[in-house]
């Protein structure tokens, strides 16, 4: 299973600007599989991404628009994208500000199919 994940994640890392991709558990933010550039702390990305998703899910539910399907955090020096899979995991991509978000998203949706 993790070999299948790894293949998909490595494809994601070939997209311009992507520094790493992970599959993490949504509940506790633990790494299931990852493909990361050197220096990217997978455990930190996983934990923070899961927490961020939870927090914004609460905002989304409070606004009565339902659970999240996609989250994009844009910061000065980077981009974080999170897509939840129905199986209780999150596909997470971290990249530089130049990351092609559209392409990354497409690959993440493909990754979801593998995760499912």
């Amino acid at each position, binding site marked *: 299973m993790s070999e299948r994940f790894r293949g998909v994640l490595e494809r994601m890392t070939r997209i311009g600007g992507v520094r790493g991709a992970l599959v993490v558990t949504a509940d506790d933010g633990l790494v299931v599989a990852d493909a990361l550039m050197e220096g990217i702390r997978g455990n930190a990305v996983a934990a923070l991404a899961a927490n961020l998703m939870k927090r914004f899910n609460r905002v989304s539910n409070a606004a009565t628009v339902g659970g999240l399907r996609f989250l994009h955090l844009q910061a*000065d020096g980077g981009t974080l994208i999170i897509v939840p899979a129905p199986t209780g995991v999150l596909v997470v991509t971290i990249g530089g500000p130049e990351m092609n978000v559209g392409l990354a998203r497409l690959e993440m949706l493909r990754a979801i199919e593998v995760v499912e």
Partner: protein
Amino acid sequence: MVDDIEVMTAELVANPGSLIFLELGETLRRRGQLESAVRVALTGLEHYPSLLDAHDLYARILSDVGDHQRARQVWTQVLHGNRRHLGALKGLAFLCFWSGDADGALDHLETALAVNPADQSIVQALQTVRAMEPHSMADAPTPSAEPVFAGLDGAERGILLVDDRGRVLGGRLEGAEGADVSEHAAAYLAGAAQEATRTARMLDMGAWHWVVAESEAGNIHASAPAAGSLLLIVRDRGVPAGRLTMLAERAGHTARKWLDGQQL
């Protein structure tokens, strides 16, 4: 209820080490039988001197009998053992509020909400404190009286300006059934924005600019248009993320102008 007390008392007599004392003490406290409640709590503490929930129970009883100073000491000790203990956070929030320290109450309640965002009693308490807080936004123009975003698309139903403690500054958010969900969303937005700040910092990404999220029934855009403020835009799924970002930029510009005006 009396039967419950009898059953729990019988269980405690049969097994003095039972943790049923927590439930029994709380039941007695709620019934106003404070002398019995304090006996149960102190007996329980003899068996479990390091059990934080037992200290929390004792503090609640102390608070009920009006010994706020001791209650505060006990709850503070509980927080030293577990800084996310909900009972102690709520108890200290109550004591702060009771003594007129609205900021202290908000601090404890916001931490409590971060521990359990699903606890409606905390959300309600936050709303109560904010509404009664001196110099709070309760004294400021209400959103309906101060249409910060007048003229912007969806100004009265899908744009919300909030301070970094989750108090509504302007705009309004309407839920699916047309109800005003501004306060509820504002309470969660403050925590979410803190998480965005923390995430960006810990991942060496610098300052966060915005978060765009797509959900089952709508898209949301969150940003911090000025220090100490947060902006939330909510639209249905027909509004693409790019357009949402453009709208957020206009609303952010409007919010900054309004906030500048408030400081004059």
